C-alpha cells in the first residue's frame, strides 16, 4: 500500500512525528527507501520527509570540524571544491556511489542511516574519524562513526532519533589517503571489497595508519595500525594482518567468503600503496 508522507517544517515537529508514529521512517533522498518499498521489504510505512526543514542541507566549516547536514546530496560531497581540498578521501568515496543520478538524489544522512555494509562513504568517513549527530525530541548526542554501525543493517540510531549532521574533525592530520573499490561483476556493480586508508602525521612524521573496510564484514569496519618506523613493506604486512582480523565477509552473488577475503587483501594493499605515494618525500 502507498505510504503516508509527513512534511514537517521544523526539526522539533519532525521529532514529535517520529515519536507519535513508531513505524515511520525518515525520508531523506529516498533512493534506498523507494527500492525497499518496491521490493516489498517495506510495507505500509509512513515517511517523514525532512526536506522542508530549514538548515539541514548545509555544508559548513568550523575551526574544528567540517559539518555536513543530512540533506546534503552525495553529489555535492563529491563536487565540493573545499571538501576535495581538505578531505579528498571523502570526495573520492562519495564519487564512487552508484551513478550520478543516485548521487544527485541520495543524501549524506540517509546514506549513513541505511547502514548497508557495502556503501562507500562510511568507509572513508571512518578513516577520517567522523561522527554522527543524532537528534531526538529531548536530546542531541554525538556518536563516533566507529560505534555507529552495530550489526548487519543495524545502526546506533534509537527510536525517535534523526541524523542531523555528520562531522569530520580537522584535527586528524592525514597526509596520504586512498579509497579503493573492487567489484567482481560489471564495472558499475556494488563492491565485493573496498578499503580506505589514511596516513596520519605529526611533527615526528607518519605514525599511524587508519584503515577501514567495506563489503567485507556485516558492517563497515576500521582499525588503526601503529606504523612508526615501518617501511612500506612492513606497513603492508602489519596492516594486512590487522585487516584479516577485521574481515568476516558475507557470501552472495558477488562472491564466496574465500574470494572476498582475497579481494579484501588486494584492496587494502592497493589503497596503502596509493596512499603511501601521497606522503611528501616518502617517509
Amino acid at each position, binding site marked *: 500500500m*502507498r*505510504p*503516508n*508522507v509527513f*512534511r514537517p517544517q521544523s526539526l522539533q515537529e519532525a521529532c514529535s512525528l517520529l515519536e507519535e508514529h513508531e513505524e515511520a521512517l525518515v*525520508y531523506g533522498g*529516498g*533512493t534506498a527507501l*523507494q*527500492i525497499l518499498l*518496491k521490493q516489498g521489504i517495506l510495507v505500509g510505512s509512513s*515517511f517523514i*520527509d525532512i*526536506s522542508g526543514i530549514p538548515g539541514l542541507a548545509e555544508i559548513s566549516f568550523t575551526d574544528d570540524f567540517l559539518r555536513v547536514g543530512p540533506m546534503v546530496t552525495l*553529489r555535492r560531497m563529491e*563536487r565540493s571544491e573545499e571538501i576535495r581540498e581538505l578531505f579528498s578521501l571523502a570526495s573520492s568515496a562519495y564519487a564512487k556511489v*552508484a*551513478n*550520478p*543520478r*543516485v548521487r*544527485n*538524489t541520495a543524501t549524506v544522512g540517509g546514506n549513513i542511516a541505511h547502514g548497508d555494509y557495502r556503501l562507500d562513504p562510511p568507509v572513508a568517513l571512518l578513516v577520517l574519524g567522523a561522527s554522527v549527530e543524532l537528534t531526538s525530541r529531548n536530546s542531541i548526542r554525538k556518536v563516533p562513526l566507529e560505534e555507529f554501525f552495530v550489526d548487519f543493517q543495524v545502526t546506533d540510531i534509537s527510536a525517535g532519533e534523526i541524523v542531523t549532521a555528520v562531522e569530520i574533525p580537522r584535527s586528524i592530520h592525514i597526509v596520504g589517503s586512498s579509497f579503493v573499490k573492487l567489484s567482481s561483476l560489471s*564495472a*558499475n556493480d556494488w563492491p565485493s571489497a573496498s578499503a580506505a586508508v589514511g596516513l596520519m602525521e605529526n611533527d615526528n612524521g607518519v605514525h599511524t595508519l587508519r584503515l577501514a573496510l567495506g563489503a567485507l564484514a556485516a558492517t563497515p569496519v576500521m582499525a588503526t595500525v601503529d606504523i612508526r618506523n615501518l617501511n612500506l613493506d612492513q606497513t603492508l604486512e602489519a596492516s594486512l594482518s590487522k585487516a584479516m582480523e577485521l574481515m568476516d565477509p558475507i557470501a552472495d552473488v558477488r562472491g564466496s567468503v574465500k574470494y572476498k577475503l582475497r579481494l579484501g587483501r588486494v584492496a587494502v594493499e592497493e589503497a596503502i600503496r596509493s596512499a603511501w605515494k601521497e606522503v611528501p618525500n616518502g617517509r
Partner: protein
Amino acid sequence: MNMVFQINGRDVGIEVSDSELLLDTLRHIGFSSVREGCGVGACGSCTVLVDGKSVSSCLVLTSRCNGSSILTSEGLADDDPVVSQFIKNGAAQCGYCIPGFVMMVSELLSENPIPTEQEIYNHLEGNICRCGSYPEIVQAAMDASKAKQTSKLTC
C-alpha cells in the same frame, strides 16, 4: 497535495498523491520520453533533470519537486547540440534508453563542457543500452562537447 512546477519551461499545476513517483506523474501527463526500465535507479531510462541535476524519476517523489524546474528530452531545443550529435552519429538502435543518455550527456556538458573520454564513461556508467550503442553514444557526447565549444566561439 496540490503543487506547481515547471516542465520544459511551462508552468504545470497538478494534484498528486503523497507517494506518487515523478516517473508516473510525468508519463501520466504525456511526457513519454520518461520510461521505466528497472524501477530501481539502475538503468537510466527514466532520467530527467530536476533543477539541472539528473535523477532517476522512478526513485523521486513528485511532491519533492514542488517549485522545481524539470527538463525532459522533449524539452531540449530544436538545435540542441547533444540531440544533433546523437542523430549525426546514429546513436540509437531500439532507442528506448536514448533520451536518458541524452539527458545525462546534457547534464555532464553543463557541468563540465570539455570532458575527457574517461569523464564521459564515469558519467554514463549507470545507464544501460542493451542494444550496445555505446560507441556511438560516447562519440556523440564528444562531438556535442566540440559543437558547443564551436558555437560559443562564433557567438
